[in-house]
Every structure is written in structure tokens, then in C-alpha cells.
């Protein structure tokens, strides 16, 4: 008996020791990290928002990214992930590029390979650019206007170069008369008529219709040059030939990559990139918690994906290393949309009943709360896009709670005073979206709106909720989704969601199937406007029509918690890159 008691005591003591050791070691791990890896004192919470943290021009060192998601492609014409566009500035250059400046300032485009932001003709349909001196590829050969044209042309070869943005194709050749360089019979493979290259230093774009956002489109990696003799078509993304300050050394999909300095790049030819680190590495992980812990421990500098730390990592970082954390707006809106082809959402009052009955604070909590989820959204233009109006809140969503009386009034007006039944469609691979669906389901039940939640395969979005026929046949009355701008204008954000001419049989993003001639007309006016501020005012009008039509229930203007190591210099978040740090400006030496 005595032996048993003693062994129990020993076991209890052992267990206590293990717990104490764990508490001790994890507490040590929080923020302190390993000596020498942090590189000094962190500049403070939100030090990288709207200002530059740890400004320095000192060169050297290795910038160490980690991430859990590889790019969809590193080919400049095929990549569509936001972090890929940010990272692409290390190895690609474009005629113009987002300004290397914090927050709102980054929305402007500035000259990169071009000497200016383009000379625009009186009818606003022709843009002429002149190339700077000293532009070179990684083998030292000069970059010419023909290489830029060839690079852009690759997007037309959708059978090989698929997946990337199509803005340039839609702006230059909306009828897709050109078949792409791989099916081009001309000897130089430069048959696209909308682009002219009268000499090696001049490139002229001829648009069929004026488009004020055309410079923004030219700032996308899809407008980067590609040299025909280095083009490996589908496989180009495995080792893109560099026109920027770094060149590719190695890349293994889903494992990692390494870039080193491109010695042929001339600093004097590039007014944008600081090119401070000597080497850039990306390690791809599968364990998001492990990634957060390694960031906090100082093994890596930042998360390349920048989609926000996990809940455990977030808590640890905010408690013990808050000075290493920023909480930026991502430019995304998380929302529910009501396809009007599914009854009773053809009735404006039924849509508004859902908006009033929803519990907005609960939806925000489901997204992660005010810091990790975002601010309560009030309309369909986010703060990072021109045209956002902070005072606009027609449904008083900022009050954060349901208005059940109004919801019941709207139900009466739509002829369903007792409520109705519908289906909420939500991606099965996005836990916060599922949580918002459940929140919405619980809130709507209180006014008699019964809902089923259909969790569909998130990888098949294009063919499931992107196919209006399927949406109708499945009776998806409420679709939960999110959207971020390709470039920070109403055209890049709102138009694909709400312009009736963007409704597609497959790959549709206008899930509400909004086709209001008045809204479409506003888009035409805004797009023809070359002054971003004036265009923003017109997009603001469109936003009012969309929001007040009750097609959308915006949840949050998304924010997230992102980590920066104390080694990092020149750190700031950029609106142009969805609240990510401007990677091309970062340094690691102090």
C-alpha cells in the first residue's frame, strides 16, 4: 500500500514537473526567441501602418520568408495570388508600378522601366511610353520594348498561360482577335495589333475604349517583359528569367525557393526597388502553428502569404511580442450575396430583411473579431479603394446588432411575414466562412427565416457558385464569399461583382446577377475618367446603388495580424498589395 502511494506521489510530482517545464519553456519562447536572431528592438505595434518602420538603406543579409501556401505560379503572366504580385517585384519589372510608399500613397502608380507614367492622347485611348536607359536582363542583354510586348502577349495564349489576370486582354483586345504568340505566324511573334513598338525604347498601346485604370493594369506582373528565347511556356514559372534586382537560383514547388542578387541589374535604372538583402529565401511549410512559432522564435522574418497568424500564434504574439505585430486592412470585404434568380431574393424587401436580421457583431466575431477579422463593413467599397466613404452606412450596420423590427417590416413588405426557407452556400475549406454561415443561420431563425447550410467543395468555386445555372438549380439564396481588388479602384473591385456585363456562364463573380443599366452606365463613366479622384466619386455613386439595392450583406472590411521580425528594415504595409508589406523595400541589415 505504501509503495502504491509513493508511486502515485512520484507520478504526480513528475506530471507537475512536466507541466512546469512546459509553461516555463513556452513562456520563454514567447517573443524572446533565440539570441541574435531578432536583431534588436522591435519598432512597436502598428509601426508599419501608414509609416515606414526601421528606415535604413543598409545592404546585406538574408531576407527569410516562410509560408504555408506556394504561389499559384511564379510566372508573371500566370500568377494571380496577391503575395505573388508583391514578391514578383524582386525579379520582374514593369513600365509602371505601385509607388513604394506606405498605405494610401501606394495606390498611385509611378514610373518603373518607363521614364514617366505614359503620354496619353487627347481621346485617352493611346498611351505612349519611353524606356529608361540601362535596363538589362540577368544575362546583361538590354530589355527592349519588344520584350515587354511579347510578355504581355503571352496572356492571350490561354491554353498554355492560364490562371493569370485578363485585364490587359480585356482592355486591349476585348474580342480576343489575337491568338497569342505560340500560334502567331509572324516571324517575331509580335502580331498583337493593339501594341506597337516603333523602336527598342518606345512602346505604344492603342485601346479600343478609354480606360482610366490602364496604368494600374500595366503595373501588374502580367505586364512584365519576357524574352522569347528564354520563354519556356508552361514551365516558365519554375525559373523566370529576371529583369529585376534578384535572380532565381532554385525553386522546388511546395518546398521553397532562393533568389540572389542579379549582378546585371543597375541600381541607377530603378527608382523604385531598394534591393537591400543579398539573398532572399522562402521556406514552405505545412504546419501553420509551427510557422507562427518559428516566426516568433526569430527563425524567419515574415510570412510571405500574410493571410494572418493563427489564433494560438496571434495570442502569443499579442501578449509577448506586440511590438513585432501590425494589424492592417487587407482590402478584402467578407460578405453574403443574394442571387436574385433564387426566390424570394428577387424581391428587394426579402433581401433587406436578411440584412436587418443578421447579427453583425456575431458575424465579425465569426471572422476572428475586430483585430483578426476586421471592422464592421457598411458598404461594398473597402477603405483601401478610391471611392470609400467612411460615413456611409445606410443599414446602420455599424451599430453591430440586428434590427428585428425592421427585419419583420421588410418581411411583411416582401409578402413573407412568417419568414421563408432558403439555402446558404459556403466553401467547405474556409472555417471562418462556415462560422459566418452558422451565425447567419442562427440570427435569421429569430425572424422565421429557416436556412440550410450547403458546404460545397471550395476548390470548385468556379463551377459551383460561379455557374448561375447551378446556383439557381441548387437554390442558393445566400452565398458567402470574399473579394479583394486586383488594383485599388472601383473597376478592380466593385465592377466584376456588380456589372451585369460581367455575368458569365462559368467563372462568374457577379453572384447576385445584378444587371442594372444605371449601375453599368456609372461604370462606363468612371472607367473613361483618367483622374482617379473623380473616378472614385462615380464609383461611390455605384456603391450606393449596389448597397441600397440590398444585394449584398457586407460583414467586415477585413483586417489581420501579421508578424515582422525585429531584423526587418523599411517595413510598411501597402494598400496596393492588400495590406501586405512592400516586399521590394524590405531590408534585414541594421
Amino acid at each position, binding site marked *: 500500500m505504501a*509503495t502504491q502511494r509513493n*508511486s502515485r506521489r512520484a507520478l504526480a510530482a513528475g506530471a507537475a514537473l512536466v507541466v512546469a*517545464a*512546459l509553461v*516555463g*519553456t*513556452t513562456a*520563454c*519562447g514567447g517573443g524572446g526567441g*533565440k539570441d541574435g536572431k531578432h536583431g534588436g528592438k522591435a519598432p512597436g505595434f502598428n509601426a508599419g501602418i501608414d509609416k515606414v518602420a526601421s528606415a535604413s538603406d543598409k545592404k546585406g543579409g538574408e531576407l527569410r520568408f516562410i509560408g504555408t501556401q*506556394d504561389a*499559384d*505560379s511564379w510566372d508573371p503572366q500566370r500568377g*494571380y495570388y496577391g503575395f505573388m504580385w508583391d514578391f514578383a517585384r524582386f525579379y520582374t519589372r514593369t513600365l509602371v508600378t505601385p509607388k513604394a510608399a506606405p498605405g494610401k500613397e501606394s495606390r498611385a502608380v509611378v514610373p518603373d522601366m518607363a521614364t514617366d507614367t505614359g503620354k496619353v492622347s487627347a481621346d485617352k485611348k493611346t498611351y505612349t511610353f519611353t524606356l529608361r536607359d540601362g535596363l538589362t536582363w540577368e544575362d546583361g542583354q538590354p530589355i527592349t520594348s519588344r520584350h515587354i510586348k511579347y510578355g504581355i502577349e503571352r496572356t492571350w495564349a*490561354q*491554353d*498554355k498561360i*492560364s*490562371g*493569370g*489576370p*485578363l*485585364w490587359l486582354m480585356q482592355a486591349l483586345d476585348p474580342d*480576343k482577335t489575337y491568338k497569342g504568340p*505560340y*500560334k502567331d505566324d509572324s516571324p517575331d511573334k509580335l502580331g498583337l495589333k493593339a501594341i506597337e513598338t516603333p523602336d527598342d525604347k518606345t512602346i505604344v498601346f492603342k485601346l479600343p475604349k478609354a480606360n482610366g485604370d490602364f496604368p494600374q493594369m500595366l503595373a501588374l506582373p502580367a505586364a512584365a517583359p519576357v524574352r522569347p528565347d528564354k520563354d519556356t*511556356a*508552361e*514551365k516558365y*514559372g*519554375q525559373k523566370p528569367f529576371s529583369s529585376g534586382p534578384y535572380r532565381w537560383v532554385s525553386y*522546388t*514547388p*511546395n*518546398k521553397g525557393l532562393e533568389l540572389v542578387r542579379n549582378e546585371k541589374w543597375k541600381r541607377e535604372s530603378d527608382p523604385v526597388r531598394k534591393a537591400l538583402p543579398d539573398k532572399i529565401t522562402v521556406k514552405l*511549410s*505545412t*504546419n501553420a*502553428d*509551427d510557422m507562427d*512559432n*518559428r516566426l*516568433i*522564435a526569430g*527563425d524567419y522574418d515574415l510570412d510571405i502569404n500574410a493571410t494572418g497568424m493563427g489564433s494560438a500564434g496571434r495570442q502569443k504574439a499579442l501578449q509577448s511580442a506586440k511590438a513585432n505585430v501590425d494589424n492592417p486592412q487587407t482590402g478584402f470585404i467578407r460578405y453574403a450575396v443574394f442571387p436574385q434568380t433564387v426566390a424570394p431574393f428577387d424581391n428587394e424587401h426579402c433581401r433587406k430583411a436578411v440584412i436587418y436580421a443578421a447579427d453583425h457583431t456575431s458575424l465579425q466575431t465569426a471572422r476572428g473579431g475586430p483585430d483578426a477579422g476586421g471592422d464592421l463593413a457598411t458598404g461594398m467599397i473597402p477603405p483601401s479603394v478610391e471611392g470609400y466613404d467612411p460615413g456611409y452606412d445606410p443599414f446602420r450596420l455599424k451599430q453591430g446588432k440586428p434590427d428585428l423590427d425592421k427585419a419583420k417590416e421588410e418581411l411583411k413588405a416582401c409578402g413573407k411575414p412568417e419568414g421563408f426557407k432558403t439555402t446558404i452556400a459556403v466553401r467547405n*475549406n474556409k472555417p471562418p466562412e462556415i462560422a459566418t454561415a452558422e451565425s447567419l443561420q442562427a440570427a435569421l431563425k429569430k425572424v422565421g427565416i429557416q436556412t440550410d447550410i450547403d458546404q460545397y*467543395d471550395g*476548390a*470548385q468555386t*468556379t*463551377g*459551383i457558385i*460561379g455557374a448561375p445555372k447551378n446556383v439557381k438549380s441548387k437554390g442558393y439564396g445566400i452565398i458567402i464569399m470574399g473579394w479583394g481588388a486586383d488594383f485599388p479602384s472601383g473597376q478592380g473591385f466593385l465592377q*466584376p461583382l456588380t456589372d451585369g456585363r460581367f455575368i*458569365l*456562364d*462559368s*467563372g462568374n*463573380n457577379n453572384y447576385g446577377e445584378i444587371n442594372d443599366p444605371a449601375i453599368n452606365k456609372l461604370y462606363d463613366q468612371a472607367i473613361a475618367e483618367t483622374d482617379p479622384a473623380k473616378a472614385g466619386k462615380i464609383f461611390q455613386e455605384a456603391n450606393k446603388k449596389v448597397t441600397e439595392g440590398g444585394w449584398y450583406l457586407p460583414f467586415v472590411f477585413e483586417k489581420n495580424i501579421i508578424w515582422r521580425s525585429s531584423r526587418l528594415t523599411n517595413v510598411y504595409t501597402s494598400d496596393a498589395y492588400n495590406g501586405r508589406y512592400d516586399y521590394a523595400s524590405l531590408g534585414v541589415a541594421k
Partner: protein
Amino acid sequence: MFAYIVRRLVAVIVMLLVVTLVTFGIFFAIPKLTGSDPALLYVGKQADPETIEGIRQKLELGDPVLVQFWHFVSGIVAGRDYTGGGTSVHCDVPCFGYSFRTEQDIWPVLQDRLPVTLSLAAGACVLWLLGGVITGVVSALKRGSLWDRAAMTVALGGVSLPIYFTGLLSLAVFSYGLGWLDGEYVDFAESPGEWFGGLILPWVTLAFLYAAMYARLTRATMLEILGEDYIRTARAKGLREPVVIGKHAMRSTMTPVLTILGMDLGALVGGAILTETTFNLPGLGQAAVKAIGDRDLPLILGVTLIAAAAVVLANLVVDLLYAVIDPRVRLS
């Protein structure tokens, strides 16, 4: 014996063909029936119907499933050209498919990932066999003692605790906390020392789980064997206890252990998914997880085939080893 091996090898090939056919059916026929379209996985958010059709042709999704299956199988021995949609991509022998997600042949990916998984499986296997079998034998010999009870309690804990718990715990203590072990994988060719250091935690974590199972299995089998008449006879004949245990009891005890070992090793080589994910080891298991997340069907198919081959071959080796260990099942 030779004829037996040949027969078994033929059976292995047939089994792999069946696995391939079933996997093909799941990935390519069922989506067709349910109306989902793999081509949509490879297009961007602005894709038009023409683009989707081009991708469909490129992936040869329009062909009947049996034709696709034939192309796949013949590609393994003869290589393959993907020529649909006006494009041509060559896949070298042995062509286990081509990933349109990463624009890579599948075979080099498997070749790149396999050594990591083998390193993990082999190291962990040595540890769990040593730990599990020794613990099980000692527990059986000291049945009812404090050692026996303590060892079996720990073993019960080992069996009950999943890898994603013990793995994260070991990382929290030894990597993030104490900083003793980095826990990051480095290729053996790059640095044998770092390779070893990076695998200690995964080995121990994985071995802890398996050693617990093997300890319980060994103990139970050994106890049963120790009650057999031939053990009593051996002792009655005056044989020394180490000989009775080491020569007579151990041989019989190892037969079920070996059976389970074959299954476990085969399954591990196919991908220790949880361990590789937890410790971020770039092996086959991790590749499978990424491939499933990215809906990279050709890579999923490749990993499935390797896993099936590993299980079938490991069982073949075990069957052959039976003859060595236990004369009663010696093959004629």
C-alpha cells in the same frame, strides 16, 4: 521459392493495376458523374468558357476514363506526350503523370520526396523495434512488477496520444522552448549532422506511438508463448533461461510482430502524413496533403501508387522472412 517469389511479384503488379484503376475511377470518373470539372481547378478567376475548354483538352479530360487509364499505364513504361489543346508537354519514362498545377513530371517529385519519408520511417522503425520489443519482453518476464505496470501505463499513453499532440508538445519544449533541437529537415547530402538533428524529434515522436503498440503486442505474445508446452520442455531439459527466451520464445514472438511491422512500414513509406505535416518534413505524406489541398490529381495518384506499392512489397518481404524466422511456415 523462386517460383513463389515470381508468383507474388505478378500478384503485386496486378494489385497495383487494380489500385490504379480504382484511384482513377475515384478521381476522374466520379467527378464526371457528379458534374464537377477538374479543368476549373486550373483556371483563374477571370476564366472564360473558351479558356476552360482549352484546359479541358490539355488535360485530356474529354477522353473516356479507360482511355485515360491506358495512357497513364502505358506512360509508365513508354513515356508520354500531352498534346491536347494545341500544346505539347513531354513526360519522361517512367511517366507517373504530369502535374498541371506545378508544371512538373510526377516521378521526379516522388523521387525527391521518397528519401525523406524513408529516412523518417527507417529511423523511427529502429527506435520503436528496439524500444517496443525490449520493453514488451521485459514486461512479460516481470509480469505484475512495478516495471511492468509502469511500462504498460506509458505504452497505453503512447497508443492513446496522437502524433499531432505529442509532436506539437515535443516541438514546444525542445525546439521553440529550450532550443535544443531545431526540428527542421536538412538533406543528408547537404549536412548529415543537421539531417540527424532535424529527424530526432520526428523519429522519437513516431517511435513513441509505435513502440507503445509493439510493447503491448510483444508482451501479450510473449506471455502466451511462455505458457506453451515446448517452452516448458526446453526449461525441463535444463536449457539456460537466456536460451529459452532468446532462441525459442523470441522466434515465435516475432512472427506477429513481423506481420504488423510489414503493414506499418508499408503504410509509413506511403506517407507518414501526420508526422510529416507536424514536423514540416518534405516527404510523400506532406506532398499528399498539399496535393489534396491543391486538388493536384496526378500527384495524388502518384503518391497513392507509391503507398500501395510500399504496402504490397513490404508484405511480400515479410512473407519471405516468415520462412527464415519460423521453420513451420518454410516454403517448399
